[in-house]
């Protein structure tokens, strides 16, 4: 008897918490189907009094939405390529090549994760503007081709779990280091590449700070910058803004739904061991 009461209480608590956690999503989606008047009517109702879908076309028309989306897709795609190209190579050199620098570099990789962007943003801005590269996508894309510490740590962890004998088998056949990397190691790390690929996609898609600093020309905005244009007037058209946000967030949710397992593994390994 006592057991079943505590079970019910547990379920009630879990259901309440789950509801609280998804409520912002519900608010976002449901507001996007309200008329703006409806959103600003008391008493506030969770569901629209009248369901309308006009907010979507209106949101796309109010700002150059698809241009911004194109810009965002472009930056995301190039960053993704850069990260996938460089990360496994660097990670490989840290655990699968026996050389003096490996430990030093591993330490430095960890250390750079702690450098606040607040410190680096002024000099980076200064140098990019000197080179005439502000209001281009170079400052946003370039770092992807030099490896991001967090991703390197995740892939390094993965390589560390692969037996050396698997890779050294290639040595006997007289393969070069690069061939061993490319033909043996790289195919093995497909699952972890998926994981960092997802992170790289998410990071580039959601990035706000770099575009904020380096992009001031409205035509070159990314979606995360563009969303603010709905807010710069005296009042905010929340219904439209939420419609725009839904479309912005949708690819992320789809990606998460498909790759949930990779998300969880990536965080579990890096968070614990890093």
């Amino acid at each position, binding site marked *: 008897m006592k057991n079943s009461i505590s079970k019910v209480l547990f379920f009630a608590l879990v259901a309440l918490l789950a509801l609280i956690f998804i409520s912002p999503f519900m608010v976002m989606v449901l507001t996007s189907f309200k008329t703006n008047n409806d959103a600003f009517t008391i008493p506030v109702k969770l569901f629209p009094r009248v369901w309308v879908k006009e907010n979507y076309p209106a949101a796309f028309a109010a700002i150059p939405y698809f241009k911004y989306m194109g810009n965002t897709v472009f930056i995301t795609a190039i960053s993704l390529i850069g990260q996938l190209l460089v990360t496994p*190579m660097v990670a490989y050199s840290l655990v699968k090549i026996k050389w003096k620098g490996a430990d030093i570099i591993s330490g*430095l990789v960890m250390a750079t994760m702690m450098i606040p962007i607040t410190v680096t943003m002024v000099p980076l801005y200064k140098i990019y503007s000197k080179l005439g590269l502000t209001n281009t996508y170079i400052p946003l894309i370039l770092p992807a081709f030099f490896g991001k510490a967090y991703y390197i740590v995740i892939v390094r962890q993965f390589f560390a779990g692969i037996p050396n004998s698997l890779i050294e088998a290639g040595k006997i056949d007289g393969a070069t280091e690069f061939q061993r990397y490319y033909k043996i190691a790289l195919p093995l790390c497909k699952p972890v590449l998926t994981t960092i690929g997802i992170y790289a996609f998410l990071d580039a898609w959601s990035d706000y700070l770099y575009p904020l600093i380096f992009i001031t020309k409205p035509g070159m905005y990314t979606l995360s910058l563009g969303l603010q244009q709905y807010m710069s007037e005296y009042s905010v058209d929340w219904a439209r803004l939420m419609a725009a946000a839904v479309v*912005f967030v949708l690819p992320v949710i789809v990606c998460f739904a498909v790759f949930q397992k990779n998300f969880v593994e990536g965080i579990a390994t890096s968070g614990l061991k890093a």
Partner: protein
Amino acid sequence: MKGRNATQRDFINGLLFSSPWILGFLAFSVYPLISSLYYSLTKFNAVTAPQWVGLDNYKDIFSDPLVWKSLGNTLFMAFVSTPINLFVALLLASIVCADFKGRGFVRTAFFLPSVIPMVAATMVWIWMFDPTYGYINNVLSWFGISGPAWLMDAHYTKWALVLMGTWNTGTMMLVCMSALQSVPRSYYESAEIDGAGKVARFFYITVPCIAHVLVYQAILSTINAFQYFQQVYIIISANAGVKGGSAAGGPENSILMYPLYVFHNAFTYLKMGKASAMAWLLFIIVAILTVFMTKVTRKVTENAGGE
């Protein structure tokens, strides 16, 4: 065993393979750090060349009340938000570690907020915090509570941020979850035989077993709090638009976070020298915290006899 040539070849290969990162490290970390230190001793805006002023920027910082105000706000986020987030993350993790129907769905619900682009999430929260038309105050009104003005009232702004932060603990939850799952079952079983209750088991088995993870997460979250500013930047721009004002730090500067003030000095007031000096001060704080984190985590791990 390895010949000299092989050692040399490995060295060259290692260097070649990691060269992209080394170059990036020099260009995106070392160079900015050093030039930021130099800039902190100069006066310049985006256009003019830096002019040497010695320690003037640092003197300016220490006499600027807004620097202290913003540091206070940031410390609040670091030391109020962190323990709350850790508690929530641990609670959520224990829930999803339990065995029940719909566990997968619940885990997704708890974690999903962490992958949502920060801009979109922040905007939804601004809308939910709306004093009149927001959902939060309306739900509160069901219970006869008249909610505060949240992001518009200096007494509640930071608490609103804390609340927003708890929604975003999914990553921490996953880390806690895999820590909880790594505690050997047999420990619990033998404790149960010895007659230890649920609470006793939690404090005498679970907590010591995952202490190193908790400590690491706590300090990591503190370090992140020192970088917290994009959310407040968005909130402030949104409210400034609504009110037609240009409050740089929210109501009574209550959410003027330290990094936000650095950002304003650099890109709004174009006092890049002062911004650099402030940034270096932040860098030193974060560096100390990082060293502290490494030491403490190692100590706790050793005490637990793990790894």
